[in-house]
């Protein structure tokens, strides 16, 4: 397994290089002068040129790319044009919030989805099954900003149980301030997990080993959670990996609604401000994160199913 992980890490290097090159090209191709955007309409051409020179934007594109790559190898992505701080420190200051939010959201989704997925599979086409699937469709269709606001209104304003917005960096404070955002994302993502697990469990329930386990007198709960769930988990693990990778940068709307200083929001504001160093730095981070999540997903297969050889 370790050898597999190391080989995958090596393979990731050209992949990340490719992602970064494409991102560099796209960002620089989009119209927009960072100096002009920052200084606004009142600035003279001389002021804009001074700022562009300070950022190295008047250098040839290839030179800018080489400078960027050289810095990236040393994990130095330069300074943010808009924030006037190092890209590494800017990303690091927001990575914790984003990381916690993603993990918390996936945990919420799994806590809801696993028992419901099994229950609806076992009670196919009964009231619980219809109710869960109908509720799931409504939640999945609901715009995240709207669901977030509803939850904020209910639990933050009306009941006063949780903060309506903001992020506290202490562990307890982070859990408290991320509960509503995580619930928002978790409720939208959970229906996907429920349906996937439900289909997989239905299929597994017809397997001969289930019948034989029941024939041996094993309890229903033990059969379901120890044998059926484990054998039904591969599709769910795949989906969890894909969703987690997406959520790394895809939580921007929820971050916006709840004022969470996360990486998604940083990406949107940096693209808007043509803050090239931050966009490029974030691309590397997201690329590495997705590759790492994919690797963990593959490793999880091997843990769940001993027949899988890496």
């Amino acid at each position: 397994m370790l050898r597999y992980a190391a080989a995958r890490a090596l393979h990731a290097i050209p992949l990340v290089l490719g992602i970064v090159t494409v991102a560099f090209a796209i960002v620089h191709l989009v119209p927009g002068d960072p100096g002009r955007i920052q200084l606004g309409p009142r600035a003279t051409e001389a002021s804009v040129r001074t700022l562009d020179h300070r950022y190295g934007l008047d250098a040839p594109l290839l030179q800018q790319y080489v400078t960027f790559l050289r810095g990236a190898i040393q994990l130095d992505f330069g300074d943010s044009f808009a924030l006037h701080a190092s890209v590494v420190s800017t990303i690091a200051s927001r990575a914790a919030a984003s990381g916690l939010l993603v993990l918390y959201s996936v945990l919420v989704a799994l806590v809801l989805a696993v028992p419901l997925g099994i229950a609806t599979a076992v009670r196919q086409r009964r009231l619980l099954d219809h109710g869960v699937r109908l509720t799931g469709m409504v939640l999945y269709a609901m715009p995240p900003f709207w669901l977030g606001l509803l939850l904020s209104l209910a639990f933050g304003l009306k009941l006063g149980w949780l903060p309506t917005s903001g992020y506290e960096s202490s562990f307890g404070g982070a859990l408290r301030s991320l509960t509503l955002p995580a619930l928002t994302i978790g409720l939208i993502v959970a229906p996907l997990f429920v349906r996937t697990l439900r289909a997989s469990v239905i299929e597994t329930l017809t397997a001969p080993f289930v019948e034989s386990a029941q024939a041996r007198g094993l309890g229903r709960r033990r059969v379901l959670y120890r044998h059926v769930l484990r054998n039904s988990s591969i599709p769910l693990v795949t989906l969890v990996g894909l969703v987690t990778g997406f959520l790394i940068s895809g939580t921007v709307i929820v971050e916006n609604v709840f004022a969470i200083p996360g990486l998604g929001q940083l990406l949107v504001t940096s693209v808007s401000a043509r803050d090239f160093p931050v966009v490029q730095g974030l691309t590397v981070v997201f690329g590495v994160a997705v590759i790492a999540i994919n690797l963990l997903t593959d490793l999880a297969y091997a843990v769940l199913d001993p027949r899988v050889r890496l």
Partner: protein
Amino acid sequence: MLRGKRTAGVRLLMFVTVMVAMATAAGCGGSSSTNGDGSASIFTGGTPGGTPVRGGTLVFARSVEPASLDPLAMTDPGSEWVNWQIFDQLVEYLPGAWVPRPGLATSWTVSDDARAFDFVLRRGVKFSNGDPVTAEDAAYSIKRLTSPINANASILGKTLKSVTVTGPDSIHVELTKSTPAFLYYLGGVQASIVPKHMLERIGEKRFAEAPIGSGPFAVKRWQRGKSLDLARNPHYWRSGQPYLDGISFRLTPDSNARILAVRSGQADLADNVPFSQIASLQHVPNATPLIERLAAVSTEIFNDGKAPFSDVHVRKALNYATPREQIVKAVYRGYAEVANSAIPKTSEWDPDVKPFPYDLAKARAELKSSSEPDGFSMTIGIASGDPDVKLIATILQDSWGRIGVRARIAQTDFGTLATKYFAGDYEFDVFPSDAFATDMPVPDVIGGLLYDYGNGHAAGSNYNSPQAIALTARATTTADPAERRQLWSKLQRLTYTTDAAFLPLGFLPARTLAGKRVHGFETLQSGNWRMERVFLR
């Protein structure tokens, strides 16, 4: 288990239920609100005053965060209004009449030709680190107005010739030509007094991260993307002030989140309350929407250098075909005044200039006299993510369509819109509501930008009128107050009525939501807040 036809019936019921639920969920949003009455009494003023109470930290949920804490470097609202709490200027603006008052300068004299200024500095003032504020600091700070990092250097520093220290508490400023508005410039945040030796020692970059000023508050902690915490400046020169122990500016981009934060007591103030929510917020128990006078106007821009917008008859036709009253009602919910000027109301604003009436007959007549008598197609450029701007564009598209002008709305991100705008690659752009605001009581800065083609091509509008250029040059340099007023009035009529150079819509107010415990808070016309006067009770 249900089977057969009953199963199909259940499925149909489920489908219908889901569709209704989705439509309800997707369609709901915002809050229902009633229109403002659109009368002159839209202004509420600030929060109540009373006997100040010392203590407490005020939490301010803000829509934007500072880009830089160097007062010279940035003119965005996120930076500017925060920097005003950290720094002082030689002259300052207070609630009430919007005129320069003694700040770090206790008195001044201005030569008859408005080319020479002498300032006597306030004694005993210290920066927040305990260092004294000296005449060298004042001179250094004024000289910085010419720095290339100053986005307004083309105006604020344009006529600055020299600044010399004439005594331990006095400085002398010489200009290359008469600039009566220069005194007003010194009340702007970019003319903030900064510690010379510290800046020279650590450099502008580090200073912008951890600045030192003599204002009522000092930077305690700045967490980019999250919050900026200020603490009381123990050396502040106003005895007994500030009353607050500190201010925490919390970045909260979503307007609903800002409002909920104040309503739940998590925050005390929230800025940029959406127009659509003002009426409903007037009925909530523990928060009050404040609508206050602001020097801001919603002005949309033709590309005056590009056909057919280079034709004054086309511009006049579109101005006549713009339903301003409808826009004030539909977009600003009555909380705006129809604008009769492309620049905000300042000291030289002429109230007697008549706004363009909504008159389709006149619009068609102007179009018939123009280079496009049979109408034409055009593109309205807007930035994505702003519902007010989208609504304005939609109303214009509909109304202009009735005179034969077929407009397509093109949405792009703000960066692309701005780049195309400054490259002259646009026809007509609708900007966010706060795009044309000024922190100066005088029109010289914003008028100089918009009316003078030599200044960045009239702020990118390409309005090139030799008459406007000449009038602006005279208006910004005459030392005769009566002549100044007359010239600015002429400019207003020329640019608005005669040339219809732009499409002004409405004068806009400051919109803040205040929690019950906030007292003494007020937004000045410049957009600034005098937070040293605010207290919590």
